């Protein structure tokens, strides 16, 4: 450690720890961002059409299409808010525009939305599965495949109670994701992308097959949305159930229909949550994301709802398929029954994937929102207490999941009731958001990166016509919904006001307690907060060694590094990555969340180990989405020459280096190469170079180059040739042959040469990450037992 740093440390006896407060982001493309949002937004296609038709009759698809069209306008509001605030969610925007009280109220409405997203998605998936089981039994029975004994047991064709099965399934899925969230296992954008790819295959097949079917059956559009065509169910009129008002006002009837279809555009808030994680150029990519999700959900939710009414006969559409409309659509295509049933199974599998994902999104989203609120000291500390082992905000997760389980059980598997209530949260969070954006147009008149068009300029004044128009539709619909959705109005207002009261009451108490706890923590460790990881914050020199730690029972690799490194020459940084979930980027983590009791214990042990060697280590905690990306980015930012890690209990050293290599390839430029040393419990070390580097050469290859050089330099005009010219020429020819016809022959020869050692870490086909064993002898283990991390400067940019 440099003298300046040492003197700095003498000022205090406390151990200094640098804490990066912002999640170390892994930036994602707009395609991935769209996939993440569509996992939530697209899931409503599975139930929105059925719910709308139960409420307003056969004209429902026109309203769903209208809502999907209108959602482009809502999306524009979100794009403008994100162009103003990187974390442009409802809470931030409403707080800026309307103050803390209304911000808390808006978050309460949003929480109502999230608490219902999980149950409606889980129950809907259960309905699809239950419906499939029953229809399969019915078909099997028609063919005489059901044993007589089963007939006796079920008093006829075997059936499962669809609502009961839906409740059971929803409870199981919710519990599964509760456990995943408790452990802090992240949902990757990669997984979301895969789910959306499979969903797209289903949507394309559905559209094509429906198109072919329509050529046979003829096109019979549903009745257009006129007053005479609207047939409201008694539940659809709520407090106006016994009134004739809805039938006397044509536009009001349209608003009622629109209000019953509004849940089709739920999930827009995810746009604000992923914005911070979008890759450069952010705003342009946000617009692209908005276009993709807009078009996709218009086709998936809107057009598929329309096709369902056109193809499924009236006699069965609502009575049988109201809760699994797309499954019904699959059964009423033309073609053999077996093929339709197979397609229905595919629909159910896709529904299971996307709706289960939405259950998780609801838990992650509500956890994120409550964390964001807690940044302002609104939530009691008790809720924010990190899990002892996993470091997650387990009490928030438990509370949200508890509310969701209660909702599932209370709904008794009724998707319609859930959908009606869900719409309350959806519409009111949009209302708060849009009205706030409107207020901000007058409050902050400065230029924005983007504004919802059109805007009329009258002298110095600007009239936001577009923004106000979207706001007018939302406010009118939300107000009418208060009258027509009695369940939603009652439960929504009770929930929102209850949560609002909790927020308000806890705010004052929490602030005092929070300040006290922070003081306690600071007495043990000197916590230095920093937005990003920087070498200067840690007061360390380039070429340092980064040692990653996670489990305080396995610090052998730290001991190994401390044994070999002279800290007067080379600094050691001990780093712990605190894994944050997707969407965590939407809020800054509090010190307590990043540096929990677990980290205190971990660093206490690490410091004890370092003190036992009489050496100084710098300590760093980094919140991250992906641990490998975090290591690579940290090593890059700190200009580390080596990274020392312990071997994983779940992965081989090769696999660990592969993951690091992959993270290195994905890291943005400029990036530095480094050596990773993976220490086994018996002190055996596997070393790999991360990033491109000069390969180590076998003596016989060096000799061959030299012999070639001797021969070639005898040729006329080549007496000034260098050894590296031969290597360049050979490599150029090799690259040309590899990209040409000889690729397979070359690969065959290489396989012969290396035998079975063509491993993924060695990058066999050029698509693999740049992680390579440093030297052949590195893999032999005990031989390099005494070889410590490389001294600076091993590598440079």
């Amino acid at each position, binding site marked *: 450690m440099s003298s300046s740093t040492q003197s700095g440390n003498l000022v205090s006896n406390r151990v200094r720890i640098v804490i990066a407060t912002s999640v170390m982001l892994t930036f994602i493309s707009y395609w991935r961002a769209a996939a993440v949002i569509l996992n939530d937004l697209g899931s409503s296609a599975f139930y929105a059409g059925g719910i709308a038709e139960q409420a307003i009759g056969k004209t429902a698809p026109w309203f769903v299409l209208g809502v999907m*069209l*209108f959602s*482009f*306008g809502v999306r*524009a509001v979100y794009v403008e808010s994100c162009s103003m605030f990187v974390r442009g969610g409802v809470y931030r925007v409403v707080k800026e525009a309307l103050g803390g009280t209304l911000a808390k109220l808006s978050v309460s409405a949003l929480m109502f939305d999230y608490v219902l997203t999980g149950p409606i998605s889980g129950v809907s998936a259960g309905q699809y599965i239950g419906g499939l089981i029953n229809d399969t039994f019915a078909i099997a029975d028609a063919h005489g495949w059901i044993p007589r004994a089963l007939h006796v047991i079920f008093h006829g064709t075997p059936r499962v109670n669809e609502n009961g099965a839906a409740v059971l399934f929803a409870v199981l899925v919710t519990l599964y994701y509760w456990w995943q969230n408790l452990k802090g296992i992240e949902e990757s954008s990669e997984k979301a992308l895969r789910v959306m790819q499979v969903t797209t295959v289903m949507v394309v097949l559905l559209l094509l097959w429906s198109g072919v079917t329509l050529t046979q059956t003829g096109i019979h559009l549903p009745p257009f949305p006129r007053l005479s065509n609207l047939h409201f169910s008694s539940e659809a009129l709520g407090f106006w159930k016994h009134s004739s*008002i809805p039938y006397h*006002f044509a*536009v*009001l009837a*349209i*608003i009622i229909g*629109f209000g019953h279809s509004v849940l089709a555009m739920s999930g827009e808030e995810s746009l604000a949550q992923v914005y911070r994680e979008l890759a*450069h*150029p952010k705003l*342009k990519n946000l*617009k*692209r994301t908005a*276009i993709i999700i807009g078009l996709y959900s218009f086709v998936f939710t809107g057009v598929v709802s329309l096709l369902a009414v056109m193809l499924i006969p009236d006699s069965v559409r609502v009575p049988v398929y109201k809760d699994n409309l797309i499954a019904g659509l699959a059964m009423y295509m033309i073609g053999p029954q077996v093929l339709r049933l197979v397609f229905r199974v595919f629909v159910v599998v896709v529904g299971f994937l996307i709706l289960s994902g939405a259950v998780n999104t609801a838990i992650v989203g509500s956890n994120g929102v409550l964390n964001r609120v807690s940044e302002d000291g609104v939530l009691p500390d008790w809720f924010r207490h990190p899990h002892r082992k996993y470091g997650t905000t387990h009490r928030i997760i438990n509370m949200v999941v508890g509310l969701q389980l209660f909702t599932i059980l209370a709904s008794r598997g009724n998707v319609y009731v859930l959908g009606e209530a869900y719409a309350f949260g959806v519409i009111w969070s949009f209302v708060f958001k849009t009205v706030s954006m409107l207020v901000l147009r007058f409050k902050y008149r400065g230029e924005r990166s983007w504004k*919802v*068009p*059109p805007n009329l300029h009258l002298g110095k004044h600007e009239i936001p*016509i*577009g923004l*106000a*128009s*979207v*706001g*007018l*539709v*939302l*406010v*009118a*619909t939300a*107000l*009418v919904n208060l009258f027509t959705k009695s369940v939603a109005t009652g439960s929504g207002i009770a929930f929102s006001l209850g949560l609002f009261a909790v927020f308000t009451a806890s705010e004052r108490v929490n602030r005092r307690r929070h300040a006290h706890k922070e003081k306690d923590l600071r007495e043990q460790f000197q916590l230095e907060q920093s937005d990003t990881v920087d070498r200067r914050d840690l007061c360390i020199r380039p070429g340092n060694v980064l040692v990653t730690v996670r489990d305080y029972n396995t610090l052998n690799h730290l001991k190994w590094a401390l044994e070999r490194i002279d800290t007067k020459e080379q600094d050691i940084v001990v780093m712990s990555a605190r894994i944050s979930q997707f969407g965590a980027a939407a809020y800054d983590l509090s010190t307590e969340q990043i540096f929990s009791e677990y980290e205190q214990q971990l660093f206490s042990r690490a410091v004890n180990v370092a003190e036992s060697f009489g050496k100084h280590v710098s300590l760093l905690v980094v919140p991250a989405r992906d641990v490998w990306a975090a290591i690579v980015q940290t090593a890059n930012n700190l200009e580390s020459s080596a990274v020392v890690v312990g071997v994983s209990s779940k992965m081989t050293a090769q696999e660990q280096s592969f993951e690091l290599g992959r993270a290195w390839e994905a890291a*943005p*430029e*400029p990036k530095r190469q480094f050596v990773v040393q993976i220490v086994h419990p018996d002190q055996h070390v596997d070393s790999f170079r991360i990033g491109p580097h000069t390969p180590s050469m076998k003596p016989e290859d060096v000799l061959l180059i030299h012999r070639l050089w001797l021969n070639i330099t005898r040729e006329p005009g080549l007496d000034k040739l260098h050894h590296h010219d031969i290597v360049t020429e050979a490599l150029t020819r090799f690259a040309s042959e590899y990209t040409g016809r000889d690729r397979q022959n070359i690969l065959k020869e290489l396989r012969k040469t290396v035998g079975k050692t063509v491993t993924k870490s060695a990058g066999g086909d050029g698509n693999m990450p740049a992680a390579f064993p440093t030297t052949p002898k590195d893999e032999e283990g005990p031989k390099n037992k005494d070889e410590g991390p490389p001294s600076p400067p091993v590598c440079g940019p």
Partner: protein
Amino acid sequence: MTAGIRLLEAMFVLGWAGTTVVLLLTAIEDVETLAERDEPVKS
């Protein structure tokens, strides 16, 4: 009651008229956005 309902109806109709313009203008912009290419990042 009737006045309140008429007001809501007017808000909805006016809102949709304006939103239609929003949709048209953003659609034109969306086509431009999709046609644009990213500038290569200088390393």
